[in-house]
């Protein structure tokens, strides 16, 4: 029997596309022949905005890229600026940064797994996940006054010191999280329907994954033993004992398991960081570039100039964000504003591999594979 090919639009407004993303599918019956991705619905011109703001003014915009895990976004940009300007950071600030970034990584993976399960039709996990996430967001709120858009990390350190009672509350949350994690795994890992939806779906080999520029848990799920925290150790990661979680299979299930393992590793890192948190300053008080504004209380410990000028030059600085390699490419021309800011966002680059993954599969498999890539559209469209 002859069948016609059908062009099917999925999105831009669809619950399973996690935002405004459009799949243009060429279907042969139920089989996806070709998948074209149309994006840009959330494009806000963040890179152009970067050229018009001073170095400090741009930090809040980075929150709005990957709004599920904004803390690593803050850090990636600030790290690039610090490398460009040669700013030293006090040890305590580095510990606080790593602590909250790992906390944010756990939050990100909970949301990612929860929404994946919801796409597959199991609503329990997102309820459970958001319960733990809520407590974590309250911790963030205590720390910097915001639940999702933090603007907390700044060049030279962090904005405020830990509030009273933060560490005990975090410890309590971690204890709770460990117990909940067992629940998660009992609910999901050996579920037969979950296996049928995930195993051998959206498979991509290690070589292909590298060729497509996949990074993060999506690449580690294909068996590449890489982690920017290990390959290019930054901040205090060299002093911390943890491992990069990998799985050899390269299918959707492997990517899910990598995320669960990473939650455990992050808890491990959190424990080490809390135990060895040093006392001291949280902001470097050295002076860089332009002199402080007149009348500012330079005796205050947490002083750092609002306006400063790095040397002319360029830097590409990357970190291991929860979703993959997040890089900022900054060109400075020696003025108070960057000449060019380029954001290498993990969601954008990971999305490249989706058409390859889903070719020859069915639409429900597209949803499953797309869920395991863990994309946030603010990060894709920038």
């Amino acid at each position, binding site marked *: 029997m002859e069948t016609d090919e059908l062009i099917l639009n999925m999105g831009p407004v669809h619950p399973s596309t996690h935002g405004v993303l459009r799949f243009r599918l060429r279907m042969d019956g139920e089989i996806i022949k070709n998948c074209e991705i149309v994006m840009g619905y959330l494009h806000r011109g963040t890179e152009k905005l970067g050229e018009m703001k001073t170095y400090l003014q741009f930090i809040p915009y980075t929150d709005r890229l990957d709004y599920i895990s904004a803390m690593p976004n803050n850090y990636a940009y600030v790290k690039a600026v610090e490398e460009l300007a040669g700013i030293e950071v006090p040890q305590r600030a580095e510990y606080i940064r790593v602590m909250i970034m790992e906390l944010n990584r756990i939050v990100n993976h909970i949301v990612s797994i929860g929404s994946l399960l919801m796409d597959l039709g199991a609503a329990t996990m997102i309820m459970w996940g958001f319960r733990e996430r809520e407590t974590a967001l309250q911790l963030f709120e205590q720390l910097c006054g915001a639940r999702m858009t933090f603007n907390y990390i700044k060049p030279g350190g962090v904005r405020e010191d830990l509030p009273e009672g933060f560490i005990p509350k975090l410890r309590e949350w971690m204890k709770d999280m460990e117990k909940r994690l067992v629940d998660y795994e009992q609910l999901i890992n050996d579920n037969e329907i979950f296996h049928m939806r995930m195993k051998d779906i959206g498979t991509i080999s290690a070589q292909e994954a590298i*060729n*497509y*520029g996949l990074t993060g848990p999506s690449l580690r799920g294909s068996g*590449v033993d890489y982690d920017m925290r290990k390959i290019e150790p930054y901040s205090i990661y060299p002093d911390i004992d943890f491992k990069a979680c990998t799985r050899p299979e390269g299918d959707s299930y492997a990517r899910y398991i990598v995320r669960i393992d990473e939650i455990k590793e992050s808890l491990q890192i959190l424990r080490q960081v809390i135990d060895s948190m040093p006392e001291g300053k949280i902001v470097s008080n050295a002076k860089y570039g332009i002199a402080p504004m007149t009348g500012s209380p330079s005796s205050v410990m947490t002083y750092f100039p609002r306006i400063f000028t790095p040397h002319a030059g360029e830097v*590409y600085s990357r970190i291991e964000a929860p979703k993959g390699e997040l*890089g900022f490419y900054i060109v400075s021309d020696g003025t108070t504003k960057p000449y*060019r800011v380029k954001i290498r966002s993990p969601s954008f680059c990971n999305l*490249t591999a989706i058409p390859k993954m889903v070719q020859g599969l069915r639409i429900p498999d597209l949803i499953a594979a797309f869920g395991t890539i863990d994309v946030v559209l603010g990060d894709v469209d920038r």
Partner: protein
Amino acid sequence: MNAAEELKNALPNSVVSISFQLDKPLAIIKKEDILKAATIARDMGFVHLSVITGIDYCDRYEVVYNFLSYVRKQNLVLKVILDHNNPVVDSLTSIWKGADWLERETYDLVGIKFSGHPDLKRILLPEGWAGHPLQKDYDMKTEQFVTIGDDGEDIVSTDGSNLLRRKYHGN
């Protein structure tokens, strides 16, 4: 010997100069030889194409490629310098599939053309958008409006008078 020096030894005629991008070895490549240089870089172990981006320096364009080797744990930066009137460079899509969207984005926002790219069209902005926003002489004053046509295609126009927009009091 760092990676840029290695590349210069392998391709003495294609590498214009070598230096550093902060701490990362940087090689400036003749624009017609970028495909050759990238192939050699890949064979040297730089399998991960981290980022492609273009920068408008008003008198010239620069396209920057950042590579990473997972095995050697080293970076390599390649750079080509393009004419400001006609910025064209060879596409790397034949070596890296991941270069596809990065090049489309560079074309969309910076206006650099990649010859040999299978489907070089805008990616973040709609087809029909005037100008490339990250060029330094981009016209920021003219508003552009996007509406949906009968077939679902994007229509870009500078006339927003018939759109539902919030009217500000006083003007």
